[in-house]
């Protein structure tokens, strides 16, 4: 290393000093806030997931009921219901697939 680089390295060296307690407190507060934000986010996601599950279940039950009204024989209705579920799932997942691509 040349003398100039050595001088630069020396100039960049810091003198040790007492910790800045305000900064330490700020970091602790930021960690607390982040923890709270994560809990809220988790609660919202869980709430939405439960809501979606209920809506999906109700929809499924209703469509199954309407299918059985039209086709009283469940053996004939089953393939149709399965196709509907597959189509519905594909429609729900399509936006995610597009985002990833």
């Amino acid at each position, binding site marked *: 290393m040349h003398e*100039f*680089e050595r001088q630069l390295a020396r*100039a960049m060296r810091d003198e040790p*000093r007492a910790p800045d*307690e305000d*900064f*330490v407190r700020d970091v602790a507060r930021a960690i607390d806030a982040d923890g709270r934000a994560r809990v809220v986010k988790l609660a919202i996601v869980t709430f939405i997931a439960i809501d979606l599950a209920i809506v999906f279940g109700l929809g499924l039950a209703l469509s199954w009921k309407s299918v059985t009204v039209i086709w009283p024989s469940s053996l004939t209705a089953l393939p149709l219901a399965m196709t509907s579920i597959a189509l519905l799932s594909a429609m729900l997942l399509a936006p995610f697939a597009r985002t990833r691509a």
Partner: protein
Amino acid sequence: MSIDAATARKLSESTLVLAAQLRDRVAFAELVRRREHWLRALLRRVCGNAQQADDLAQDAFLRAWQSIANLREPAAFAGWLRRLAMHVFIDARRLKQTGFDPPATLDSLASDAPSPSRAAQAQFDLERALAQLSDTERLCIVLNLGEGLSHGEIEHATGFPLGTIKSHILRGTMKLRRTLGDDDA
């Protein structure tokens, strides 16, 4: 169970890291106490602005708290934290696109200088000279000369290609020579 602040001050850094990995807040606060000055000074040199450096340092400590469980070698905490801070800086720079505000006026630097001594003047000149460099040149120079990292270590810390790091250091050093008026330049 959590350790108290007085006990935490007596523990080694590796022990504190292990305790922080078990989500002990007091242990992590002690790690922050021990490393804040070093990290803030490093980021101040890298981004050339005290306020932004403090924000980045806080962000780096927050990320450290979130991912400290991933640290396999507690003894490597300082290097790991430095790498994390460099990534915080690079991410913030990418978001801003235009780079960080340099310490724009000489007055703002002068107000930070504690006394008109020669050491303070040299420090002031250095800060001013560093502010002339691009963000990446400054980052590489500070890590190389200030932190004593090799080119390979800088590559590991920043993710920049080795050739880019070498050219940034070379170009940055030449600019500093010119700005600081080194006779050998």
